[in-house]
């Protein structure tokens, strides 16, 4: 059986190929170099504002708006090992393409995702935002630290780590996320109810 060729990333993962993974792994290797740091405060401020907006959408449960922050052929990657590894060769905490990000959002909206009934309340802090240039003038890499405080069913707990965002400039000067890598400091530990979106 051959699945019909499809170029809609919401219904087909045609774009997640070996080349895609290879480029992704390379893009997220050795990018936060001092000599590539962007000093221009306007660029850093626009990146920071964009990350804060993403955090707010997630805190507000605006998942459709969150999805719209990503390019069509995107990746959402939460490594399961501290050295991040290669997702082709190891199990990750999460690795989503566009379709699976939409799967995630769909599942949470069914009302039958018991791990999110009741829905967690979250507040995200995003800080230490630094932007780094890439070889593509329309692409920057952004490093930020995060702390998500989650309240659910009487308990408060913390999710802590740093994120790498690969941002692509869109017309008009704002950004879209080409790929996001979320590095939890306890990514290789047994974690209770990992059902919120990071």
């Amino acid at each position: 059986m051959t699945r019909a060729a499809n170029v809609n990333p919401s219904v087909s993962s045609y774009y997640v190929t070996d080349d895609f993974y290879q480029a992704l792994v390379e893009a997220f290797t050795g990018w936060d170099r001092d000599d590539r740091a962007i000093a221009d405060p306007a660029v850093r401020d626009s990146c920071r504002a964009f990350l804060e907006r993403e955090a707010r959408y997630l805190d507000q449960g605006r998942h459709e708006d969150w999805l719209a922050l990503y390019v069509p052929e995107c990746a959402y990657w939460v490594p399961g090992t501290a050295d991040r590894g290669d997702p082709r060769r190891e199990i990750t905490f999460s690795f989503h393409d566009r379709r699976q990000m939409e799967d995630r959002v769909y599942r949470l909206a069914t009302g039958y995702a018991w791990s999110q009934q009741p829905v967690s309340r979250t507040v995200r802090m995003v800080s230490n935002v630094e932007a780094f240039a890439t070889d593509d003038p329309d692409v920057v890499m952004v490093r930020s630290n995060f702390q998500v405080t989650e309240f659910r069913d009487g308990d408060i707990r913390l999710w802590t780590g740093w994120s790498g965002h690969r941002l692509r400039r869109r017309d008009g000067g704002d950004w879209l996320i080409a790929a996001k890598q979320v590095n939890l400091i306890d990514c290789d530990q047994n974690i209770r109810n990992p059902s919120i979106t990071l």
Partner: protein
Amino acid sequence: MMGTRQQPIFAPGPAAPGYDFDALIREDKVHRLLYTDPNIFALELTRIFGGTWVYLAHESQVPEPNDFFRTRLGLRPIIVVRDRNGVVRALYNRCTHRGATICRQARGSAKAFQCPYHGWTYHNTGELAGVPWPEGYPSDHHANGEFNLVQVPRVESYRGFIFGTLNPDAPALVDHLGPARRPVDEWLDRNPGGKVVMREANRMKFRGNWKLAYDNSGDGYHVVFSHRSLLMMENRFSDDDGKGMAYYKQQPDAGPIKIHYLGNGHHFKDKRFTLDQRPGALWEIEGVHPGMEGYEAALRAEHGDDADRLLDLAASVPMNINIFPNLLILGNHIQVLEPLSVDETATTWYGTAVVDETGELNGAADAINALRMRTQEQFPLFGEVDDLTNFEEIQAGLAAEEDEWVYMDRGFGLPERFSEADGVISGPATDEVFMREYMKAYKALMTAAPELAPTREVRR
């Protein structure tokens, strides 16, 4: 090496006072105390996690001499090590001197372990290698082995799965596994060379007793309810009911899915007979996941008609093989349960990859594994989290002291639902016969009082 010290180093305590396991475990129900009582949990740590064979590690975690992997046997800190001579051992990770753990890395390679506290050093056989400034002791600590590390006296492997027991009277591992060997063989033999290797894990834990996860592992009754959101998600593109776990819908007991009780606490939910017997049939029912279309197109372009066979290796095989008390083989996962306390359990879903040592995959192993990593991540992320929440809510519900019973009576009193052959009891998909039967094995272990025999002797 040693052997002069004959008395047991561990004297089992008296049977837990006040517990009548015949009263707690009935034919059709068990008492809530099995899940909530710290004293019963403490007894399980010797009678179950000690008294019977317990899965410890996979050989791919210690492939070379001197490789080690840190784990637990019950709550005992353990180092599974392939020693310098290639012998797989399970050493207590506990310095003989004052009790500190001597190995603090999750895994690695070491010919010896030195306690960071006072520098006592042990070979990776468990034998004491040296103590600092030995002239401060009146006798030689090396003389008769009494300062070696404690180790699990019996460590045996079955096709890569390493088990240990402290019970010298336990049957041989192969006999203990008994009829469970066949599905394990079939699960492995579909892979090249009949083997898999572990490649990291989805790691979770829940606030509930470990048996809640074991009860669930063969449970075909919960699927359409506990996993309703996942089933809706998997079917969001079509009315096609063939995807993923959707074949549980409608009348699951009339279908080809069977639950088998295999003896000694082991059980097996077999969903393979929902499949056509042809290459590609398994891949066709695989749920969508990242890379599916991209890699499939590349594999078909390169391998032509052989691509169906290769793609099946990326797909989850619909088997749940549950080896009491802590090894759950399902899909392509090797899931391990670790009791942390009476009401907390770690559940680690190790992913497996294929290896192609004989070239039978024609260079496709990396592509298969790139798909296989993703097919394995979906259920832990979008399915298991909902089960774990339900386990936590059971634990919460069981706080109601006066409502004493947990029922496992589905199918009880309906003998026409079952068949029995060669020591295997088989029933329809949603039956709870496997729970009733494994609880009998549990009761037998909890009421036996084996003399556990951890040893400082370095055998072989």
